[in-house]
């Protein structure tokens, strides 16, 4: 089966229905392994036990960015190929990406208070991530404002593509500006600066969070397809002769 055949909503529902239980099981397994490793991970020599917040903060940040990249890819599908399943993928990813970005902001704030002495500073990294969260809310609001899904998809796709400029700004903000937020320590050219005893649980948790994101996204896409079917039926019913 080619990719374009798979991009048919009915085929997608059938294939995702088969994949979702396996993906959910893999997510649960990855989280069990990650939590087991976090339990035995040593304290950091500077941060102490607060390093454990990093095991959720860093993957949440990555998934917040991943969500927007996914939406940007879907936006291209909407704008270039006008494929309705791309609309569905973009719309379904927005609330999930927003939730992970919120998780990143809150857990980062809770880490910042004991480590930096403050919950929040207006430095480039924190501010650009806050902007990402607000852009997610903007996309969600746009989808809810425009009633016609096709028109809403195009407007949301344009906002998504324009908003993608913020992704490299977030990534390189710690290099371009003098920030309180520490520079990259995992995804960097010279390799990770983190000890394997902490890096391994972090990577396992990142895999678990990614599987969770994909599971939730697949389930949300299935819901969105059903929502469009309900809408089609409502319109058919509205157009039906009186008394039918």
């Amino acid at each position: 089966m080619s990719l374009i055949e798979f991009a048919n909503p009915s085929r997608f529902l059938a294939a995702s229905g088969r994949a979702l239980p396996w993906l959910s099981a893999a997510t649960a397994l990855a989280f069990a392994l990650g939590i087991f490793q976090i339990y035995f991970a040593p304290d950091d020599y500077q941060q102490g036990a607060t390093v454990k917040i990093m095991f959720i903060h860093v993957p949440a940040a990555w998934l917040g960015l991943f969500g927007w990249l996914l939406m940007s890819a879907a936006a291209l599908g909407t704008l270039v190929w006008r494929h309705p399943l791309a609309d569905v993928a973009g719309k379904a990813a927005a609330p999930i990406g927003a939730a992970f970005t919120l998780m990143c902001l809150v857990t980062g704030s809770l880490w910042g208070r004991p480590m930096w002495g403050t919950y929040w500073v207006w430095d480039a990294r924190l501010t650009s991530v806050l902007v990402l969260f607000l852009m997610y809310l903007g996309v969600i609001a746009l989808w809810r404002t425009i009633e016609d899904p096709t028109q809403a998809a195009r407007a949301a796709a344009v906002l998504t593509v324009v908003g993608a400029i913020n992704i490299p700004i977030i990534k390189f903000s710690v290099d371009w500006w003098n920030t309180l937020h520490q520079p990259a320590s995992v995804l960097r050219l010279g390799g990770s600066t983190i000890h394997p005893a902490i890096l391994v649980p972090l990577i396992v948790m990142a895999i678990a969070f990614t599987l969770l994101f994909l599971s939730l996204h697949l389930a949300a896409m299935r819901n969105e397809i059903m929502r469009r079917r309900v809408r089609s039926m409502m319109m058919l019913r509205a157009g039906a002769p009186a008394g039918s």
Partner: protein
Amino acid sequence: MHLGPHAAFIVTAYAVAIAIVAGLVAWIVLDQRHLARMLEQFEARGITRRSDRADGEKW
């Protein structure tokens, strides 16, 4: 496991993460049940999608 002097911050961070994930899962599951119920109601009234009929429809 000893969480040190900042245990409250660590526990709160994990509680927030669990609450956000639980909220997402609950939203998706409840939405799915609501939509499935609506589709069943339409089908029970004999309203079917065009794709189930001869002229076809993308959804």
